[in-house]
């Protein structure tokens, strides 16, 4: 019942021409809605005659419906009315008796269904074009869509089922236009737009008026000669001129986006098409009103009123848009707790701005454009990165689909029987449109050039005039004309369609080759570099200053003033984190840093291990960037420099006699621990939450904290996968990081594990110093003496104790680690490591074999005595953190269980992370206490857990230190030590410590070798087991 009503209402809105026809029927239908519904179900006998239009329900707001075969076409309302009364009474009781198992009830879903089908097919058509590259190269998409629309229209017409205009002015203006304009406004390059605002306004206002008047007057003059064969009143001609002279934003966008012209050119044409809306609307309404009033009764005050109304429409629309824009900024300031609804505000408020303006008969297009322009500045600073992405995609999606639909409907609407083709009128209109467009452009660009720094040259003028496409706006406007008042309306409609076809097809198709032939500057899309950003900003300030000095108040002055005002009064109110005066510089910086990080990870995944672990990420990037820039010049691969630097480092490290592989491990682990892994958090929450996206650190984009994002990105799983894949493929890649040689599942689990730990880490209140991602610490030179590095590392550790999380992360079992014992032996053999391009181990098949997961597992299986997991350790500790010292070793089983838990669950920082606090104290203890071989271990372990560390030292040894431990090739020494002894040493002994690294390393190596690998392997194995069933386990845990 309701659906029926709904359908009727919708259809009424949709098909104007039939409204009167239907009005009576519709009312009746509504009144007797329920009987009708029942009838329609059981009266399939009603037939639709193909000739009469398909009234009422047949049309969704989006288009005509062919009656479905076998479908009760109860839409013939008139017939229904007649039949309903009798049938209902008799039929109803019967119906209620039977229980219908399955039934088709199309009418209920008809309207939305049809809308959906339209969108679906329109989008399919779009896909189709892109499947045929030749086609889409030659023709702009808009042409193809119109073509498809025509085909469909012809089909519909030939079946006689409908002749409707699916593109009604209301659907067009209320539903299809706003997304496109919002998209344009929101992604409008503000700076460019306002720099050229003068020119744009000149073209949009004066140019449009000029075109309207000249086209209207010329057509009228031609009409006076009688060549049209009908009377052509001046006002009607002017009305037509008003609607036909406006450059259409949709068509312009569709074409200009494909030809990628220079941004100045683009912004001038496109800006004009946006802003001339106000003029068009005003002129249109003005002439419409004049026409209705009749020429005789016009007074000159009416013209003045027209001008005043232009101001009101334009300024009013703009103001409404700007106010809503500020409002959006303000609202999004408070959305940080409910991120998921951020995008909705942008869309809804912009749409409200549009409707609000339309409500007062102001320019909705201007309103939504300026709403987008205004809100962007503030919203972007408030919303999360993900919301930003969402908005971007949703906006693009909406606008491109409504563009698709518009062009298709334009095609469909073309095919009908109401055409009134007047060859002369059509021809002359096209000619006048083109000619006056060209004349107008030349005149006004000459005027504009007087005031412009960048003069519009001839080629640009040509493209501007050639790009003056007409489109759906004109079509919708011409449909709005009341044929009762303007007798020529059918002819106008036909002519408008012809003009649109001419501009979209002829000009749209030829503009691409023309642009190429004329060698028009095409835009290059790229992000500004840091230098450009800073220096350009610098120049802005400089120019503003110079303008002040020379006493001229120009663009720069105005912009400077606005910026100052904005920064002082507006931003602080609308932005949650007010970032200071130059958010753009920061933004660029963070973006670039992020990009560097990603690129670095992608390109140099294999060499990453070669970077000295003590370097900060920024140093690495520095290095990388350097090499990049150099590489550009001398065509050397970007990582050569990195390689060479490693080389040096190696030489130095050789003094300590670690194997290169160890060094690599150490570095990468340090790197991962300190810089890369931390940011990466995956949502592992398995419970469904509608109101929150489970990502807690949604930083805002402009936010300086973007380095968090960077880190997240760097740690992003994608890259991991890439790397792991790579590892699979080229097992022989000698430079490849051992970790990456793990393949497939093992690797995966490793990462799962890391992720887990990371996530848990989030919960932990972090100390400032802890975050080691791409922090903005400036480290000077990439290559530093190893000793220094180590010292620094140590000092770092001491004062900023690494969070347990970090350690835990590093604790992730890597293949290498697992392998340690064998590796050691090997390293032993080649103790005297030759300095060569490839480390000795690189080509060693045995080594590779070890690093394969199978080997790992085998190794693990060999000695399954102590299957404790790191996590287990942490857990236990955390729970008994205070007692930690007392508890020596956890039982294996316990450890295992814990590990499993840790794996799958998204447990909060409760367990592991309570430890960091202890860290420092432990550390200090350690540093003072530990001596000899065991000492090192202690250090590493101590932060995380004093107890567990002793028992399973290797696994726990994390971060920078782990590497160190392993480095020592002195493992053999430690091997002799019994595990217990070691633990005891650590826990009990307070050895006067020699902080010297050499000692430390040795010690670490000793401990780590024997047990760790196994523990790790076990852990991994358990991970494997559990991860598959992670869901359940997580549930259990949480």
């Amino acid at each position: 019942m309701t659906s029926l009503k709904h359908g009727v209402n919708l259809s009424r809105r949709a098909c104007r021409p039939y409204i009167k026809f239907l009005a009576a029927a519709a009312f009746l239908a509504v009144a007797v809605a329920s009987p009708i519904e029942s009838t329609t179900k059981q009266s399939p006998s009603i037939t639709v005659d193909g000739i009469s239009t398909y009234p009422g329900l047949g049309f969704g707001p989006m288009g005509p419906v062919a009656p479905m075969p076998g479908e009760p076409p109860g839409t013939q309302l008139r017939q229904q009315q007649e039949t309903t009364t009798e049938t209902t009474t008799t039929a109803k009781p019967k119906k209620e008796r039977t229980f219908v198992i399955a039934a088709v009830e199309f009418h209920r879903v008809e309207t939305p269904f049809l809308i959906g089908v339209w969108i679906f097919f329109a989008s399919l058509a779009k896909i189709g074009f892109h499947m045929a590259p030749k086609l889409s190269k030659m023709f702009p998409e808009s042409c193809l869509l119109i073509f498809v629309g025509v085909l469909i229209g012809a089909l519909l017409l030939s079946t006689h089922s409908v002749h409707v205009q699916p593109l009604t002015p209301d659907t067009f203006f209320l539903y299809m236009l706003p997304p496109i304009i919002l998209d344009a406004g929101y992604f409008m390059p503000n700076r460019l737009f306002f720099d050229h605002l003068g020119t744009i306004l000149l073209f949009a206002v004066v140019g449009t008026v000029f075109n309207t008047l000249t086209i209207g007057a010329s057509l009228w003059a031609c009409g006076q000669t009688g060549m049209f064969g009908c009377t052509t009143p001046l006002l009607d001609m002017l009305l037509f001129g008003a609607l036909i002279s406006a450059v259409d934003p949709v068509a312009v966008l569709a074409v200009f986006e494909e030809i990628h012209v220079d941004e100045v050119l683009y912004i001038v044409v496109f800006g004009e098409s946006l802003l001339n809306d106000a003029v068009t609307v005003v002129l249109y309404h003005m002439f419409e009103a004049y026409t209705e009033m009749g020429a005789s009764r016009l007074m000159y005050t009416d013209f003045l009123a027209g001008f005043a109304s232009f101001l009101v429409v334009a300024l009013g629309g703009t103001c409404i848009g700007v106010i809503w824009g500020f409002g959006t900024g303000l609202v999004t300031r408070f959305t940080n707790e409910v991120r998921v609804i951020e995008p909705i505000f942008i869309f809804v408020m912009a749409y409200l701005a549009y409707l609000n303006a339309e409500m007062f008969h102001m320019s909705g297009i201007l309103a939504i454009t300026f709403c987008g322009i205004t809100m962007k500045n503030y919203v972007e600073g408030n919303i999360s990165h993900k919301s930003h992405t969402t908005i971007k995609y949703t906006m693009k999606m909406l606008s491109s689909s409504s563009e698709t639909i518009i062009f298709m409907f334009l095609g469909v609407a073309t095919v009908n029987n109401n055409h009134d083709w007047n060859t002369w009128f059509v021809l002359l209109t096209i000619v006048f449109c083109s000619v006056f467009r060209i004349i107008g452009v030349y005149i006004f660009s000459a005027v504009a050039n007087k005031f412009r720094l960048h003069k519009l040259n001839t080629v640009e003028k040509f493209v501007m005039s050639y790009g003056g496409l007409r489109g759906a706006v004109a079509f919708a406007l011409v449909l709005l004309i009341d044929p009762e008042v303007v007798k020529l309306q059918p002819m106008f409609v036909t002519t408008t369609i012809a003009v649109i076809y001419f501009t979209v097809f002829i000009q749209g198709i030829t503009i691409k080759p023309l642009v190429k032939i004329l060698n028009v500057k095409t835009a290059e899309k790229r992000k500004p570099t840091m230098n450009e950003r800073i220096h350009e900003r610098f120049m802005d300030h400089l120019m503003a200053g110079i303008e002040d000095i020379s006493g001229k108040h120009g663009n720069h002055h105005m912009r400077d003033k606005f910026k100052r005002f904005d920064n002082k009064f507006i931003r602080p109110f609308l932005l949650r984190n007010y970032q200071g005066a130059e958010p753009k510089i920061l933004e660029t910086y963070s973006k670039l840093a992020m990009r560097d990080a990603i690129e670095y990870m992608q390109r140099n995944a294999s060499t990453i291990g070669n970077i000295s672990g003590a370097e900060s990420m920024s140093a690495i990037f520095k290095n990388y960037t350097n090499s990049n820039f150099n590489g550009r010049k001398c065509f050397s691969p970007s990582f050569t420099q990195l390689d060479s630097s490693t080389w040096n480092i190696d030489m130095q490290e050789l003094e300590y006699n670690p194997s290169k592989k160890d060094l690599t491990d150490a570095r990468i682990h340090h790197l991962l621990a300190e810089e890369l892994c931390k940011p990466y958090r995956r949502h592992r929450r398995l419970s469904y939450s509608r109101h929150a996206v489970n990502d807690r650190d949604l930083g805002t984009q402009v936010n300086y904290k973007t380095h968090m994002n960077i880190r997240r990105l760097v740690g992003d799983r994608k890259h991991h996968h890439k790397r792991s894949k790579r590892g699979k493929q080229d097992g022989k890649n000698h430079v490849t990081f051992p970790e990456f040689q793990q393949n497939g599942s093992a690797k995966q689990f490793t990462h799962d594990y890391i992720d887990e730990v990371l996530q848990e880490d989030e919960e932990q209140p972090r100390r400032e110093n802890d975050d080691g991602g791409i922090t903005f610490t400036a480290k000077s030179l990439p290559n530093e003496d190893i000793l220094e590095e180590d010292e620094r590392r140590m000092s770092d550790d001491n004062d900023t104790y690494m969070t347990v999380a970090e350690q835990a992360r590093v604790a992730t079992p890597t293949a290498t680690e697992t392998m340690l014992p064998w590796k050691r032996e090997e390293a032993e053999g080649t103790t005297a490591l030759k300095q060569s391009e490839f480390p000795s181990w690189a080509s060693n098949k045995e080594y590779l074999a070890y690093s394969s997961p199978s080997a790992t597992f085998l190794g693990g299986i060999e000695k399954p005595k102590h299957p404790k997991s790191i996590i287990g350790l942490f857990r236990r500790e955390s729970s008994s953190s205070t007692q930690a010292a007392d508890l020596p070793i956890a039982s294996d089983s316990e450890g295992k269980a814990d590990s499993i838990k840790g794996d799958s669950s998204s447990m909060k920082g409760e367990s592991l992370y309570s430890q960091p606090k202890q860290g420092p104290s432990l550390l200090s203890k350690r540093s003072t206490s530990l001596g000899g071989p065991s000492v090192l271990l202690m250090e590493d372990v101590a932060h995380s857990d004093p107890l567990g560390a002793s028992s399973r030292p290797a696994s726990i040894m994390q971060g920078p230190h782990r590497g160190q431990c392993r480095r020592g090739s002195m493992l053999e020494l430690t091997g002799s030590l019994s595990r217990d002894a070691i633990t005891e040493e650590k826990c009990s002994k307070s050895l006067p410590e020699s902080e010297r690294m050499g000692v430390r390393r040795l010690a670490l190596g000793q401990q780590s070798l024997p047990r760790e690998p196994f523990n790790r392997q076990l852990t991994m194995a358990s991970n494997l087991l559990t991860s598959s069933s992670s869901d359940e386990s997580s549930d259990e845990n949480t």
Partner: protein
Amino acid sequence: MGNKSSLLLREEEIAQIQEETGFTPNQIERLYSRFTALDKNDCGTLSREDFLRIPELAINPLSERIVHSFFAESHDDRVNFLQFMRVLSHFRPIRKNRENRLNSRDEKLRFAFSMYDLDNDGKISRDELLAILHMMVGVNISEEQLTSIAERTIIEADTNNDQMISFEEFCRALERTDVEQKMSIRFLN
């Protein structure tokens, strides 16, 4: 026209300035009146204070540097009209098929570069860049962050690894920037 302000400016002076800077006589007169308006002491030269008295300029974050750039050639902390015009002529828009001496792209860039390069050693060091960043970005950002931004910027432009930006590197970094337009203003006729 413009006779009032040109009272102090003789024809040959205008000609000389025009010759040297490329401004039209009208522009010269207009700027001269501006110059005298700024010159509160009526001594025919401007001091730094005269510049900083301009209210908008005073709140320009780079005001100090901008003003300083006017004094590059003067030795006594005063700027006479010719020097004043010489500096301003850097910002004349470039005209095709006309001589662009002081306002060529190269000159514009050199002017900007010299504003960074406080110690005139032909290179922008980290500290010099940092100083500018400080002025522009303001106080809301930590020193560390600014430093890393500066370093990142230098690395980006630095092709010979001396941790400085030379003029050549500076030009290269701004290769794709429309300097001609960015560093031009229209002087009224």
